[in-house]
């Protein structure tokens, strides 16, 4: 469904943009329908930059990104965002704090479904909230600061679902959440995947990637160092960098070496 081929991103840096920095370097991978692919790497490795290119928030410097065979830069933006949406790390900053949750949804209606009747729309919102297991009474009519991080993150996923999306970019969506809420959000993604959603799951925590993804891409300084079925990457990591990342995951029943 989504395919990256030789995608690079070079940023201009320095006061007058005199120098360049390569954030993403010839990256290629594919994500199919109903598949979750984890994109793993440490801070600055280029994960979010890839997510932003897929979401057309920034252009790629080289290479191509296609969605169902079509070059995404050639697609009508509105049509594209009906199918592809993103959710990010800090749910609080993705939201305008002065809007109530209802407003977030009605904005989607105004832009994408202006012709839909109020009744049909209410049902659609109710169904999307049901999908993310939120009680409408508990969230609608609330300001973002009155909701928990997990509720807010699920609300943002519900918003994306309203658009009948086929693909979701999830960038560190659980790192601000508590353990108990985090697992709810992960399970939600896994349920949606079983209904055909494709997900690019960006994280630095391999345990989370392993929990829900079929395939894993490990990124180091903008380059792919390892790419394959998740079990294989976890059980027999080929690259020293992957092994180091794996060893750094804090695990409940195993103490870090050398600490």
């Amino acid at each position, binding site marked *: 469904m989504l395919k990256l081929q030789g995608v690079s991103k070079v940023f201009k840096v320095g006061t007058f943009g005199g120098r360049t920095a390569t954030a993403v370097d010839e990256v290629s991978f594919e994500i199919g329908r109903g598949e979750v692919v984890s994109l793993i790497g*440490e*801070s*600055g490795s280029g994960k979010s930059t890839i997510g932003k290119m897929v979401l057309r928030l920034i252009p790629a410097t080289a290479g191509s990104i296609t969605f169902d065979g079509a070059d995404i830069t050639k697609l009508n933006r509105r049509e594209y965002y009906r199918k592809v949406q993103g959710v990010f790390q800090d749910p609080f900053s993705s939201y305008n704090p002065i809007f109530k949750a209802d407003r977030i949804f009605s904005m989607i209606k105004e832009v994408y479904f202006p012709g839909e009747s109020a009744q049909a729309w209410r049902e659609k919102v109710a169904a999307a909230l049901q999908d993310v297991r939120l009680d409408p009474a508990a969230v609608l009519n609330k300001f973002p600061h009155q909701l*928990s*991080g997990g509720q807010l993150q699920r609300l943002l996923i519900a918003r994306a679902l309203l658009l009948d999306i086929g693909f979701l970019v999830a960038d560190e969506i659980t*790192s*601000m*959440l*508590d*353990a*108990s*809420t*985090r*697992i*709810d959000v*992960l*399970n939600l993604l*896994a349920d949606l995947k079983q209904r055909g959603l494709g997900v690019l799951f960006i994280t*630095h*925590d*391999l*345990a*989370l990637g*392993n*929990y*829900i993804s079929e395939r894993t891409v490990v990124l180091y300084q903008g380059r792919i160092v390892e790419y394959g079925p*998740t079990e294989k990457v*976890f059980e027999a990591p080929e690259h020293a960098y992957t092994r*180091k*990342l*794996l060893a*750094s*995951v*804090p*695990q*409940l*029943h195993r*103490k*870090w070496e*050398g*600490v």
Partner: protein
Amino acid sequence: MTLSVQDLRVYYRTLRGEVKALDGVSFELADGEILGLAGESGCGKTTLGKSLIRMDGRMKHVGGRVELDGEELPIGDTVKMNPFRFTEVSIIPQYSMSAMNPTRKIGRMVRELLDSRGVTVDTEELHRRLDLVELDRDVLKRYPMELSGGMKQRMVMVISTLLNPSLLIADEITSALDVSTQKAVVTTLKGFRDLGFVKSMIFITHDISLTNQLADTIMVMYAGKLAEKAPSDAVVNRPRHPYTQLLISSLPEVGVRYADKKLTGIPGNPPSLLDPPVGCRFQDRCPLAFDKCREEPPVVEVEKDHYVACWKA
């Protein structure tokens, strides 16, 4: 003993009433001990940390007392607390990395901070500590913006421990960092304790797997109260409070996969602290709740050093 906290109560004043964020918490911290403070968002971890060093204008010390090295801390009095801050108790606050003054070079910031405490910078010692955390001495000539998240975090750690406080409080200092940087930060903190830069430490995080890498003792809070406190190993392997048990079983460990073993969260939400339920605050979500839970369970030492507040423990 470094720290002794007895029946501490700290509430927030709000337009809708008092938020009972810390409602009768007691514990002790020995010399050299690292206490990991865990629990869901909003359970009062930050409130506890702040109460021990600097209350903000909306916080009210409602009851209880705190002793540090045998001396009572005047926690309710911002002015009287001044001589203790930084020298006796120091904090690395949540979001401290983004709170560094962006217009000051780091070296100048350190100097101003120490000046305000009437201390002059021991440059040699500062350099020694920068070396220790593997920060180039040049960072002192740079602006906070020029440092990566991990570098900033190490800088804040150096600054807050420069005067060798008795107690260091670190509040969610690793949540925004990637796993390799988290490990480096935890290693550094442990090093600071081992080298005697700080006598004891409260390490706050909602991530129990991470806490267990560092802490000698783990204290789990729920809705403004202590739920369980025990040596880390006991909390992780033999938790006795239903809340701790559920919290631990919701952790995705390396190797666990959705397809093989679906983990579950804790249904429901914590109660409002404006008007918390009478009795055990976990009763609405607890699978073991029974009639008795409408009365408040006392904190009981169920085995040596293992404290639990639950009628069924």
